[in-house]
């Protein structure tokens, strides 16, 4: 929440693998005070998206990385990381697989 009390609107950038879920776009805007709220808002607009990103038990999937600007939220406050209106969230698949 910014100094005016308004809930931030942030840009969320998506990897190619998830763009079909959001109408074949590479980014959308979402409203929320934390990453978790952003994900909830996205799941409301694009049902099923939360399950793409998180396990049923709520934690982020192990090979999904979310960056708040340039910082991996795993090294901040995780899904409870607060966001500001000027921020961009980047959802990326990690370098893994085989």
């Amino acid at each position, binding site marked *: 929440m910014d100094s005016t009390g308004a809930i931030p609107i942030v840009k969320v950038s998506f990897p190619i*693998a998830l763009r079909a879920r959001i109408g074949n776009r590479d980014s959308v805007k979402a409203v929320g005070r934390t990453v978790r709220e952003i994900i909830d808002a996205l799941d409301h607009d694009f049902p099923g998206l939360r399950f793409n*990103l998180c396990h*049923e*038990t709520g934690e982020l999937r192990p090979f999904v990385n979310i960056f708040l600007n340039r910082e991996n939220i795993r090294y901040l406050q995780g899904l409870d990381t607060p966001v500001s209106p000027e921020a961009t969230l980047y959802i990326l*698949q990690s370098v*893994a697989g085989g």
Partner: protein
Amino acid sequence: MANTISYAPGTVVVLVGTKRGLFILSSKDREKWDVAAPVLKGRRIFNAILDQRNGQRLFAADNGDFFGNFLRYSDDFGQTWQEPEEGIQFPEDSGEKLKNIWVIEPGRRDEPGTVYVGVDPANLWVSNNGGRTWELNAGLAAHPTRARWEPGAGGLCLHTIIPDPSNAARMWIGISAVGCMRTDDGGQSWVFANKNTRTDFLPEKYPEFGQCIHRLVQHSTQPDVLYQQNHCGIYKSTNAGDDWTDIQQNLPSDFGFPIALDVHHPDTVYTVVEDPQGRQNVSPQFMVYRTENGGEQWEQLTQGLPGGNGVVLGVLRHGMCTDTINPCGVYVGTNTGQLFASRDRGDSWSLIADFLPPIYSVTASVVV
């Protein structure tokens, strides 16, 4: 707009689930095969079936590497896919996380909307509307021994589901490494059906549960007769799983994954046993094994199958199936991407696809 895909009645459609996509092969004569470009490209497809009880619907177990596991279905042979409205996701308060979707099984003929799915962690999911919504089977989820279930190397996977066509209340499931279980009350409760099947990897060799069953098939005309390929043996039951008889006989190994049956000659059973350490053909000659007398004696099937020092092949538990034509076709997919097929009950074989990704599952349907 994509061209409409359809197959003439009588065409055999073979669905091959692989580490990197779903391949659809088709043939009108089981000699010349068309291999279509993969759908669900790049995804780990553990299992796929063609359900023809009400139209023609493909179901696929899409276990993505990154963004979750989804049961998907298609009514146009894979050109487009749908997700369930309420999919296979554990309740948040259950503490469970879906690891992999292992098997999809259509319900009985007179229940055309019913479809079953087995997953890791071992649970049974049921849809009664053709896959649109799914429910967790509470009886299995709340089994009193669940806290003591241990996984096999591939996970705690419910990999086999057999709805008894002769008895709507009866079903069997196979879980690694828990064993065979049976319900006699439509899934409300489940009992173990492991008597006389071994656990060579445990101090107690014949426990009530803990067996690593790999695959299970039911006799097509005698519903109480079952065959299972186990980590520690190959077995037959004539009493619905109440107990089992070891039918390894002259097979060179007790270890293997797949098992399949000729529905027209249901005492004819196929398996591919392996060296248990290397998980590969026992000798340099790759073989499929067949019994025609319900397990009293096994013969080696080799004509058209590769052999030599450089032949090292493994077949996973869903990697073999038969079709419903008489004489039956048999299909074997390896974990190195070769798909072999026989149109004469296994007497001779052809390599019908090569250079595929590792094959997880093979299912065959005759288009109606």
